[in-house]
């Protein structure tokens, strides 16, 4: 009880109060930025969903209740865009989670010479500005003279795919572009691999475990927190997938609407059609969906994610 009394603000020393003031002062830029660019806009967009605000509208601003949410339920394009997003996620997520893991395994192998060089090479594309990367890939995947199709023709593929204009191949093309960004995931996995105690491998070897058994019973279980982290971030990223289709096709959704992702539809509603109310409604729907999936994932985590500190 005495200790609590001592910690009451009026009993703080001048030094503590001065430090607190300086602390608040130092953190103030972030707080101001957070309020101005995150919290207030979020609250504002939530409020917009119940209004008819549209920068092109002739009608006065009014409260419309749940009309925007009702419109969302009846908007075929929104559901098509959600379908596009989920279809792409089914392809992109496994690649985005598993491939960096496999690359990290290779890079951490003792047999690999010059591992440092490879690490740098894998990470380098990650630092290339994203839009520049998209434009480079767009050229590389061009069916006329892009390197990928030139290579495929050279090895005998008579009619290589039009990666970015064929609905059958466009997701493969987009995933291929995404491969350039795996450097970040590789680094995270590498850090996780370094953190696995070598005694566990020693013990496994003594028990007669080969490479695959060690991978299955030591490496993967010990890496589940990293896999979980990568998976959560991957889901959030894929649900927010936006920039690549915007740069590739000016956000038209071509070919055949297959790249009109939900986040792109939000962008178009806001900045193309100036419909702030409806754009906000889809944005909050996407936020809710992302939150729901993330919560479900966290709910399953205790069944498959191993935290040594929990034991």
């Amino acid at each position: 009880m005495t200790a609590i009394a001592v910690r009451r603000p009026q009993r703080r020393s001048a030094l503590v109060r001065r430090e607190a003031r300086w602390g608040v002062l130092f953190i103030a830029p972030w707080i101001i930025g957070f309020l101005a660019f995150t919290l207030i806009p979020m609250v504002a967009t939530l409020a917009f969903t119940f209004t008819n605000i549209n920068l092109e509208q002739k009608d006065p601003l009014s409260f419309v209740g749940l009309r925007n949410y009702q419109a969302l339920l009846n908007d075929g394009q929104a559901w098509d865009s959600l379908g596009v997003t989920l279809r792409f996620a089914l392809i992109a997520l496994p690649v985005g989670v598993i491939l960096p893991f496999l690359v990290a395994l290779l890079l951490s192998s003792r047999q690999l010479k010059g591992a440092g060089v490879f690490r740098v090479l894998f990470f380098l594309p990650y630092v290339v500005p994203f839009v520049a990367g998209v434009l480079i890939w767009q050229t590389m995947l061009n069916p006329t003279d892009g390197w990928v199709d030139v290579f495929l023709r050279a090895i005998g593929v008579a009619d290589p795919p039009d990666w970015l204009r064929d609905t059958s191949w466009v997701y493969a093309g987009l995933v291929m572009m995404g491969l350039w960004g795996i450097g970040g995931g590789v680094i995270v996995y590498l850090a996780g691999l370094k953190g696995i105690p070598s005694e566990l491998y020693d013990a496994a070897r003594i028990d007669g475990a080969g490479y695959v058994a060690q991978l299955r019973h030591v490496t993967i279980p010990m890496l589940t927190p990293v896999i979980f982290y990568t998976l959560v971030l991957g889901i959030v990223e894929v649900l927010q997938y936006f920039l690549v289709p915007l740069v590739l096709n000016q956000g038209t959704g071509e070919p055949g609407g297959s790249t009109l992702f939900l986040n792109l539809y939000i962008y178009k509603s806001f900045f193309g059609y100036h419909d702030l109310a409806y754009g906000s409604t889809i944005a909050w729907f996407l936020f809710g969906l992302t939150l729901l999936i993330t919560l479900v994932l966290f709910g399953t985590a205790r069944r498959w994610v191993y935290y040594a500190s929990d034991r």
Partner: protein
Amino acid sequence: MRTPLMRFAALVAVTALAFGACGGGTTSPSASTESTAPSATTAAVATPSGPATVPPGGPVQVRWFCCLGGGDDESQQKTFADLIKTFNASHLNIKVVFDHTSYEGARQAFSVKLASGNPPDIVGPLGVGGASAFEGQWLDLQPYVDRNKIDLSAYDQGAVDLYKAGGQGLLGIPFAIYPSELYFQPDMFDEAKLEYPPVKYGDQYKMPDGSMVDWNYDTVRQVALMLTLDKSGKNATEAGFDPTKIVQYGFEPQRDDLRTMGAAFFASARLLADDGKTAQIPDAWAAAWKWVYDGMWKDHFIMTDQVYRTPAFNGGGYAFNSGKVAMQENFLWDVCCVTEAGGNWNLAALPSYNGKVTAAMNADTFRITKNSKHPDEAFEFLNFLVTGAGKTPMLNAISGFPALKSDQGGYFAQLEQQKDDKGKLIYPSAINWDVVTQAIQFADINPNSEAFMPNYNKSLDVLVKYLTRFTGTKGLNIDTELGKMKTELQAVFDKAS
């Protein structure tokens, strides 16, 4: 009328979207300054003049918003700044303030300003499309034109009609126009042993077999096929021609907008029916899109989007400028950059469709917003730019062909004298500039290709989607696609009502 709540919400929207585009927003002084615009007629260059003293309360602030059309270029910005300085120095009752948002963000920024009840006073340079996106927001200038005795008969009637087309009065004074022409590469015609396209509207074309035929799109197709060459030198009419190894294309349409990709060159039409509600696909436009589509995917004399996006053929966004295209349809504003196509290009007459020539036309001018707080002062500045001392520097800055007939003759003479940094003449000699002025009579005035459509930005989005689809996808049934496009447009139009 905007409510205060609407204004507040729009301001919150500004923050929420982090547009960061806020204008001066100054309240005007209450001085009721009478317009002191020079009583300029368009035939004479007006000298800026204004009160010699600053009125009580300070000068009225007039905000000039740019750039919903052109104007982003650094050299243009410098000219604009100089013009403001000149005007402000001679008009102590007015202070013009430049409010610049680059083209990419200009529509959003302008929307926010309108919605927040803080519209700029004068906007430009602005094309028909940019203005159509904000239909109903422009001031009728007819009373000002009458008061200042501006002689509109000094302009081509078509150019004047362009600004009356909406039935809302006179929304602009003709300033810069950009008729379209056929650009061609004489060397490629020589190499193929083909006659050059006619330079006079109505003239026929002499085919290689000596027959004389109308200069229409069928003829252009045949000529373009002969000008399309593969790597081995075979043209697109010869056996063994390899369409996967084309090194020179015969024709390039204007591909910035689906409405000008063939369509507006086939006929003056629009996608909105006369009832103002119904989406329509004009027959001539459907024919134009099929012609272009077949030219790309069947006949191969027009490059597909996949080829167009390659550095070798892109030409900085205009494929003709790559020097690997024999003919292109484009507006006059492309002369700025066509110099990159090599030193020997020229201009010719556009072909006809069903016996009638249509020359798509772009136009730039300045407009005053309907809710401007200072329309009189804004008009004074507009008059300075469009008919006064600011006219010539402004036209030069935006490479605009003068809408004022008496200025047109001298335009090409001064253009021919222009030199690059090394003192070399920019334009080849003996350009057939006459086809430019000839084309004005065939311009698509009413309707113009960029005319208003309900829910304009969303309608444009549909058009961009189909432009991308047509230029990038083989094996389409264009009739089916146009049916889909019409349905989508109708849905967008319906949402506006």
